[in-house]
């Protein structure tokens, strides 16, 4: 008995040692092509074109030899075909290293592709085990994803990481792939992503900027929000960090532009909802405390009545901007990117059951009113412009 046990013990140890070396799924770093960002476009003949931005380890200078060695730190490759697996198969044939998606931080949909409909591709983002739900999704505004991925970015060695950092900072409108797919798969909310575009095209200062939002109707891109509308969308969705607004407080004259610029400190949104005649009615209130950043007017912000005036004007301006954004989203884009359906779903679940299948047809007709309350909390180090000529 003990002899059997001892033999068995040794046998087990040897077998386990043999099996746990992990040679089957061994992945050496220098056998992997690390995809940092990928883009999907639709070619003119209706095929899918996938572009990968792959980190090039030899192009990344080490700490010792840092500073413009002039080598490229990424390679960008594209191929087209019928579906994702076919295209990645083609891309793999161009590479000596295995394509690895585990570090992909950015996914970009080309405008044409997004307008055509994204269903044929998105399955792979949840099905493929290497895909991470923490990747950010963006849509291009004009141009293709391929162009974006070929655009250099000066601050980071790898442009894909640049986009990722912009999105993960609080200063942008970040949408992760799982949030996007969640909105896509639910009836009470429409998907929206940030929109990216190339600026200074053709010059040596060419780079990208993320200053718009792409709005989807079901699985198709239906239009874009302008930069000003994007600011309000960020406020609405609780990403109002460091947003800046400018308001005209007096008519422009020789000395002054007559504007006051503020930055949001704390912001929020409250939605009130009632159901009347089987239709929801929505009241939205946007509220924020702000600090003054610049004052290009005669007003003295330390004076209560001057400050009140700025607050009222600012509130009015925000209110009218929000109203025009709502009209744009409801009547033109017809997509519920605000999650108003979600609010109805939560507050009136039984009424929602009746309208959920036609929600996107009902939504454009839903009356929404907005009001804005803005308080100036800090005015900075000065009360009135300090450089102002003293008249007395």
């Amino acid at each position: 008995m003990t002899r059997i046990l001892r033999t068995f013990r040794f046998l087990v140890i040897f077998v386990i040692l043999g099996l746990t070396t992990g040679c089957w799924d061994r992945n050496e770093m220098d056998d992997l092509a690390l995809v940092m960002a990928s883009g999907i476009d639709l070619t003119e003949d209706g095929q899918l074109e996938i572009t990968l931005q792959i980190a090039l380890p030899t192009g990344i200078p080490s700490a010792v030899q840092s500073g413009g060695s002039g080598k490229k730190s990424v390679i960008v490759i594209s191929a087209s075909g019928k579906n994702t697996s076919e295209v990645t198969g083609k891309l793999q044939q161009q590479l000596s290293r295995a394509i690895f998606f585990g570090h992909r931080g950015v996914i970009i949909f080309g405008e044409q592709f997004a307008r055509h409909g994204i269903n044929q591709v998105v399955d792979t983002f949840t099905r493929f085990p290497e895909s991470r739900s923490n990747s950010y999704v963006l849509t291009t505004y004009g141009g293709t994803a391929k162009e974006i991925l070929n655009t250099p970015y000066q601050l980071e060695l790898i442009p894909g990481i640049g986009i990722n950092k912009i999105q993960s900072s609080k200063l942008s409108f970040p949408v992760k792939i799982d949030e996007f797919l969640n909105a896509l798969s639910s009836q009470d909310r429409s998907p929206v992503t940030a929109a990216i575009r190339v600026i200074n095209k053709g010059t040596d200062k060419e780079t990208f900027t993320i200053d718009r939002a792409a709005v989807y109707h079901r699985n198709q891109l239906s239009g874009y929000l302008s930069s000003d509308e994007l600011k309000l969308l960020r406020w609405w969705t609780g990403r109002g960090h460091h947003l800046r607004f400018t308001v005209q407080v007096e008519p422009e004259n020789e000395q002054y532009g007559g504007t006051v610029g503020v930055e949001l400190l704390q912001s929020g949104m409250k939605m009130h909802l009632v159901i009347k005649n089987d239709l929801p009615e929505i009241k939205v209130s946007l509220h924020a405390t702000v600090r003054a950043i610049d004052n290009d007017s005669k007003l003295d912000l330390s004076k209560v009545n001057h400050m009140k005036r700025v607050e009222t004007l600012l509130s009015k301006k925000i209110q009218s901007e929000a109203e025009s954004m709502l009209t744009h989203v409801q009547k033109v884009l017809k997509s519920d990117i605000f999650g108003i359906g979600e609010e109805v779903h939560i507050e009136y679940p039984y009424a929602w059951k009746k309208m959920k299948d036609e929600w996107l047809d009902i939504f454009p007709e839903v009356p929404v009113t907005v009001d804005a309350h803005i308080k100036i909390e800090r005015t900075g180090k000065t009360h009135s412009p300090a450089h102002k000529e003293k008249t007395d």
Partner: protein
Amino acid sequence: MKMKLKGIQVFWIILIMDLGMTLVMTVTPSLQAKQDAWISVIVAGGIATLIALLATQAAKLYPGQTFFEYIHLILGKWIGKAVIVIYLVQWYTITPIILRQFSDLVQVMLLHGTPKEAVMLLMIFVIVYATYAGGIEGIARCGEVLGPIILLMIGLVLIASTNNIQWRNILPVYADSGMTGILGGALAPASYLGHSVEYLMFAAFLTQPRKGALYTFGAVLTSVFFVLITTLMVIFTLGVNLSSNTWYPFFEMTKKISLFGFIDNFDAIPVVIWLASVFVKFAVMLFLMSYGTAQFLHVRNWRNLIWFIAPVMFVFALIPQDVTEATSNYLQRYWVPFAMPVNMLGLPLLLLVIGKWRQRKWPAAADHA
């Protein structure tokens, strides 16, 4: 050589058998109740407590005797044998399924290229060794070490996920699913949490059989608590739209964890939970099968049966074609409609009723036996 179990060891064994696999395998089926899956888990917890109650009370009737011994006293020779066969079928089928689910998960989530035979063999060798060398006592000691680690890991995942919480995901409560949805969602977790039925077998090895019931209840309630919190967390962090279509929402939740910008990809932690749970559960099952079969066939040394059962389990585990067959079909065609009502609820109840009745009618005879 008589094996002995302490009460706390029974606690950890049942806790691990209940918890680890329920977390990983049954969140998806319970999500048919949508955002009310957590209510399903509470219902499932009720069913599991009932199962624990029946099992512990039935085991109390003849303390010190194994299930296979006293079942003859209660039901007579032939019906007793039939009932034993029903339990053996349960154990003989669940074990290859556990093994297959284990290798499926490892393959789907981690080692895409490794052949499943290698993954399974590794597990089988460890388990055979543990069972052969230690018996239930050895497994129980492993459980004592692994149990707290499992709880710690689950706690870690839950705490690290708190900054992904979206409170609104839980709303609206009840309206979307309704009674049928909630009850339907409760079946799968209830059937996994019902593993306290194996207490019928452990009871014989307890040093203090009377206290065993308490530890069993403790184990069931603790696991229900953790499953409940985890289900809530999955709903809060992932929402129900996407997670109901993934095989392992618990894993998806850990994939979303990102702390301070540099702690990412917690995937390794649920793997620890998973490996430890599968190890303990499989080892317990292997022991029960070998020991039970030995008593059933009157084989003197139960250890000899391991050499037969382990290879058979390995071959059986290769039969299912893919994840669907191993996980969903078995769960929905056998485990929920048959094993739960018959093996976990019906038969323990029958044993309890008839056993009580017999002891009252012939108290002396019962004492003799």
